[in-house]
């Protein structure tokens, strides 16, 4: 069995490639749309991609599961109650995906979203790792308010049930691989970004969401201190449910002359200047918007460009 972690710094997330070299198969958990890294990881281990698995209907990015399916022929697997509108394995509680000595078992883990699932990895039947999405992060859990403030208290109650009555019942040495990290706006608390994987035992000891709390205390805790999140989030779940367009790979930006850019700006195109702020402030094109190219680039694009 092997596990490859592929960090997506621009989202504060991590994608996982887990597979069996004996079986020649792997699954990719919570892929983004530039899927070449996953295909390279599968090739490195000499396996084919059998599954693109979603832990939940994402609010913070466009899923790459459909892209990966189009490029590799793998199957998309997602929570049955997520209501995906394109062909996928509709996974329910305790559904198993077998890849040689490795089995991935779907666990319904509502909280961050209602349909959320975690994937428990068993090696020869022994639980060794759990891919928790946003249900349990390193020192935190994903926020429950992204689907509306009215639902948030209900989702918080489910999150408590998920963490305390399901995930913490796993053996202490089971490794914890969350999708959301501290850099994600899906994070409810400042969770640590490094240190993946943690273990169930470590989270039981150190994660404030794992502390013994009655339901009311937990709900209050889960709803406190939540900041704002990028505006683009509001479009993501709908795109992910309907099925994102397949790109067939990343592409190159077209080269445009100054006069063409000028013309397109007059027609309403936005010019984004990706240089550092000090360069921009010294000299820039009138009406251009500054968004420096760093790990937060897409977050700010999605937040400030209507």
């Amino acid at each position, binding site marked *: 069995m092997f596990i490859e972690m592929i960090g997506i710094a*621009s*989202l504060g997330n991590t994608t996982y490639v887990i597979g069996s070299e004996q079986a020649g198969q792997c699954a990719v958990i919570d892929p*983004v749309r*530039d899927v070449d890294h996953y295909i390279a990881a599968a090739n490195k281990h000499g396996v084919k991609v059998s599954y693109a698995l979603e832990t939940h209907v994402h*609010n913070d*990015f*466009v899923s*790459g599961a459909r892209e990966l399916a189009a490029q590799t022929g793998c199957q998309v697997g997602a*929570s*049955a109650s997520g*209501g995906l509108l394109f062909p996928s394995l*509709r996974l*329910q*509680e*305790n559904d198993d995906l077998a890849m040689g000595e490795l089995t991935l078992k779907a666990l*319904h883990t509502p909280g961050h979203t*209602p349909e959320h699932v975690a994937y428990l990895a068993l090696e020869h039947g022994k639980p060794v790792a759990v891919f928790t999405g946003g249900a349990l992060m390193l020192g935190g859990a994903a926020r429950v308010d992204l*689907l*509306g403030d*009215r*639902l948030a208290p*209900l989702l918080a109650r489910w999150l408590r*049930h998920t963490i305390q009555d399901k995930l913490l019942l796993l053996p202490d040495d089971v490794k914890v691989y969350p999708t959301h990290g501290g850099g994600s706006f899906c994070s409810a608390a400042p969770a640590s970004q490094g240190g993946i994987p943690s273990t169930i035992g470590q989270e039981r000891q150190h994660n404030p969401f794992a502390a013994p709390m*009655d*339901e009311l205390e937990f709900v209050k805790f889960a709803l406190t201190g939540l*900041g*704002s999140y990028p505006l*683009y*989030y509001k479009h993501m*779940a709908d*795109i992910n449910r309907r099925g*994102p367009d397949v*790109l067939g790979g990343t592409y190159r*930006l077209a*080269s*445009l*002359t*100054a006069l063409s850019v000028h013309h397109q700006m007059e027609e309403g*195109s936005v*010019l*984004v200047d*990706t240089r550092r*702020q*000090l360069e*921009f*402030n010294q000299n*820039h*094109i*009138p*009406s251009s*918007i*500054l968004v*420096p*190219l760093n790990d937060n*680039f897409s977050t700010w*694009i*999605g*937040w*400030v460009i*209507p």
Partner: protein
Amino acid sequence: MIFVAPDLASHETIVRQLIRIGYDRLNGYLSGGLEAWQSAGLPLEMSQRLELPALRDQVAHGQGPLVLDVRQHNEFRAGHIQGSLNIELGKLSAHLDGLPRDLPIVTVCASGMRSSIAGSILQRDGRSNIQVVDEMGAPEWISRGYPSATGDEYPLVQRPPPPVLGGRPWPAPGGPHRLSVGQLVQGNAPHAGQKSAHMGKESHVHLARKPQ
């Protein structure tokens, strides 16, 4: 969307980061950068930059500018320039109509990046009386012992919760019926033919618990 971006490696990063959040149609980049722009006889402009001591002098002598702090609200509450106004950068575009055009505005944040982005948005809005603190910001102001405050200096408007994120056409045309939250809570049987839209039975038993 068109980009001013220095090199090919940055183009790849731009495309990767943006397709991840659904920007599939990016127009391209300005070939030759600002030099090409100037060579075509097109104008450039600059932003007015301001350093913290100069801002302190302006504030201290009254009739100062409107100090606009564009950090996240929780950062603002932890400590900010006394008398400054907090509008998160992500919400600035929605507040442009309410920001007076005859009052000079100084944008600040923590490091100078968000304040510079804010400056570009305000300049694009046709304002010429914008100054940008583009090196350091509120935390440095506080550590220098300049006048600061914590929390919200004045009460905020209290409102019911905002509308639901991801509002979409309802019912979803042609899509499978999905369980409502009520059905999940009560553990109701799904409608005929809807079994596939149902989670395992075990979770319903637990989820049906009443608050204690």
